[in-house]
């Protein structure tokens, strides 16, 4: 049994909150550069250049890439042989509280969805926990902006709708989202499970490496087909037209009921912020 102090978790989350908001992952910058090469329109090229310049300024000045520094979404993979000394949920929230204050990050959370009074420290986080084998703790911090989250959708399809039904729903969701989620976007798709599970899968899909493919061939093919069809929509960077509407489509699946075919589409903006560490 290995002991991890709760305060260590707070310290790590505090640093990750700043890091995720200031420093765009290098694979995202590379994907902007590749997209810029492919674009014909000057406006599309210019927008991608602005996104690259923006990432450079944010990193040099250590300021957020985007003013919407997001809802703190945290994935914890806890090894069975790890003992957390202290309250893990309190520790995560304390890390967010400190990171958002020290890092001059925007506080975007309201305490009650109806009364809408800001909590002023960006807590609470949305925390997903999973137990795994081993004696390590893996933390993924993925601050999620409101603009792209608002364009996300879920639908309970019929099994008869099949793969064509899935594609139709995903494409319709992206088309309706248009310029709102800050394209070029990353599309996370959940397929299967139950109503709540499928939304989780779509979110989980967003934290995958931008360049990977699903290990199952038929799902990997579906990711490719959807990416091609989404980019044929011509929405383009910022919705001003172009070839790059999405940079990647990531699908996660789970077994489902004989009566069901749940599908969820969780859209992320071009920043696709997420950082992970292993303690």
């Amino acid at each position: 049994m290995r002991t991890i102090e709760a305060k260590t978790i707070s310290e790590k989350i505090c640093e990750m909150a700043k890091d995720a908001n200031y420093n765009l992952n290098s694979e995202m910058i590379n994907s902007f550069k590749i997209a810029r090469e492919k674009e014909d329109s000057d406006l599309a090229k210019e927008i991608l250049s602005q996104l690259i310049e923006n990432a450079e300024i944010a990193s040099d000045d250590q300021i957020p890439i985007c003013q919407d520094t997001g809802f703190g979404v945290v994935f914890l993979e806890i090894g069975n042989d790890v003992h957390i000394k202290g309250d893990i949920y309190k520790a995560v929230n304390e890390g967010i509280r400190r990171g958002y204050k020290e890092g001059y990050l925007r506080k975007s959370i309201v305490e009650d969805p109806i009364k809408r009074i800001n909590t002023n420290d960006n807590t609470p986080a949305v925390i997903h926990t999973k137990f795994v084998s081993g004696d390590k703790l893996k933390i993924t911090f993925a601050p999620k902006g409101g603009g792209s989250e608002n364009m996300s959708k879920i639908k309970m399809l019929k099994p008869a709708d099949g793969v064509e039904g899935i594609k139709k729903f995903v494409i319709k969701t992206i088309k309706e989202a248009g310029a709102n989620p800050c394209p070029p976007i990353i599309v996370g798709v959940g397929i299967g499970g139950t109503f709540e599970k499928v939304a989780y899968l779509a979110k989980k899909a967003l934290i995958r490496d931008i360049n990977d493919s699903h290990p199952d061939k038929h799902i990997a093919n579906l990711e490719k087909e959807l990416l091609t069809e989404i980019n044929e929509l011509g929405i383009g960077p910022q919705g001003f037209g172009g070839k790059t509407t999405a940079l990647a489509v990531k699908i996660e699946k789970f077994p489902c009921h004989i009566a069901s075919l749940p599908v969820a589409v969780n859209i992320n903006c071009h920043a696709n912020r997420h950082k992970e560490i292993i303690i």
Partner: protein
Amino acid sequence: MKLKTPLTQKDIESLKSGDKVKLSGIIYTARDAAHAKLIELINQKKELPIPLEGQVIYYVGPAPAKPGEVIGAAGPTTSYRMDPYTPQLFKKGLKAVIGKGQRSKKVKKSMIKNKSIYLGAVGGAGALLAKCIKSSEIVAYPELGAEAIRKLEVVDMPLIVINDIYGNDIYEQE
């Protein structure tokens, strides 16, 4: 094209959807909560905390300024959430709004009718756009935090005309 606030009728008439502009001068910030408050005042026929005639509203909730900085990251928020409020503000003389994403049919009609325009800033380029902001002062609703109304002085803010007064929309062009 360079543009300076407050905007004149001539400025507005000369702009077409797809034009790139560099905006300088005073602009005001407002997003969801501030819009609700402004509309409430208009409905009660009370005085507003900011002028609207010829003015520009930027849909932004900036990140806090680091010590020594004017403002934190300050990119546009999604505009459709302001759709229920915008026509009333155009009617009161507001000449332009800055945001990102499509507007409702009602807002677009109101732009033609009131001769007001909709400008786009690059969503997610908050660090870059902050560089164009030379001063920032909260002028109303400080209790709203990031959603307070701020008076900003901007220099050469890079924008694109999304909707002009002639019914053109950059998002609907083939």
